[in-house]
């Protein structure tokens, strides 16, 4: 598994996480351009 695939898998699990208090519709920072955003953090 590449690091990119690992990151994608992590995000997929978080998007499907029903125990997380953050509502799914507010999780868009994880799916939109995540690589670039983390680079510029």
């Amino acid at each position, binding site marked *: 598994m*590449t690091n*990119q695939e690992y990151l994608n898998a992590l995000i997929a699990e978080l998007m499907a996480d029903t125990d997380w208090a953050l509502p799914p519709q507010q999780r868009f*920072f994880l799916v939109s351009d995540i*690589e670039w955003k983390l680079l*510029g953090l």
Partner: protein
Amino acid sequence: METNKLFQQKYESFQKAVNRQEGPWVPNAMTNNGGGFFWKGKTARDVAHDYQAYAQALLAFLDETWMDCQVMSGLTTTPRLSDTFTTAENRLAPDGTLTHLQNPMMKADEYDQLIADPKGFIANVLLPRKHPEIFEDKETGKEKLKVYAEEMIRNVAQMGCTTKYAAEKYGVTTICNLACALNTPLDHIFDYFRGFRGTLTDLRRHPDQVKAALDAIWAFRDADRVAGPFDPSKGFPFQPCHIPAYLSPKQYKELYWPFEKQLIEWVAGHGGKIFLVMEGRWENIMDCFLEVPKDSLVLNVDDDDFLEVHRRLGDHQILCGGLKLAETRLKTFEQMKDDVKRVIDTCAPGGGLIFCPDKGFVTPGDVNPTLIECLNFAHEYSSK
């Protein structure tokens, strides 16, 4: 005065200025990168738990300062983000000051990988170096990403609350759309990939690879964007230009300007203007702004001589600046009063001037009594 009426009047002064008309006064503007907190001895950590308290603390100095509009008021991080991502570029110093520490992770011999696949290179190579904790194990990675997602949402909500508070309490318009931040590829390489020393070294040692990387980043980040529509109704897109002041005119013309020109023409073609921060000194390159459509830019002048910029560009682009923030920290109002008058007398006739400190408020003392007196005087002196 009723706040809504005050907002309308201030908004009118701003609109007239950027449309090259003389309004009731010259509008004052600011960029408040957290420096406002320190006026009342607060930091972001004191108020991060409460949106309203945060906005109040950040803008408290407006109780005694005339301000018409703001580029932004807020931080590009939160205390929790700063504590969680300890290698991030946007971090809070112990005293609460927002810092930008370049933390470039790309090596000089990795250009071919960047050029071949920018997204894959970032995910596979740079992110594990920059945020190793995300890649250590799954549970740690998920916890970190949860903090990231929660705090980014929180920061957006905080910006919204602060913007509303500024408008409702002080009649201050927010003029930039930070959701639409623009940059050219060379600034991306400078900011995120190779840093100050790396980029300037690469430009001398292997300029062809840098050029190929610029094209790859443009194709990855911007080519589709500038082919699509732009909505000017949401405020000015914000562009802080970081590297131009360190480039030779030849480097600027070959490696920066071709991309910059496309961004400007894209926004201008849809009736908008870019709010472009000319960080550092641009005396050797600023004439490029005569090549793009008239009034396609609001130029935030930094270290250049404002009157000289006005002489060269003032008939062609809207100018924002005129007050040296560092001098307000060192001089009395009486020592600065004539400089304020000179800027208003020279640049205000015919509109096109926003009076503004040359730099954003970042550290303790940036918002200071002399600054406030200068801003209040500029409003009073320019009022008809």
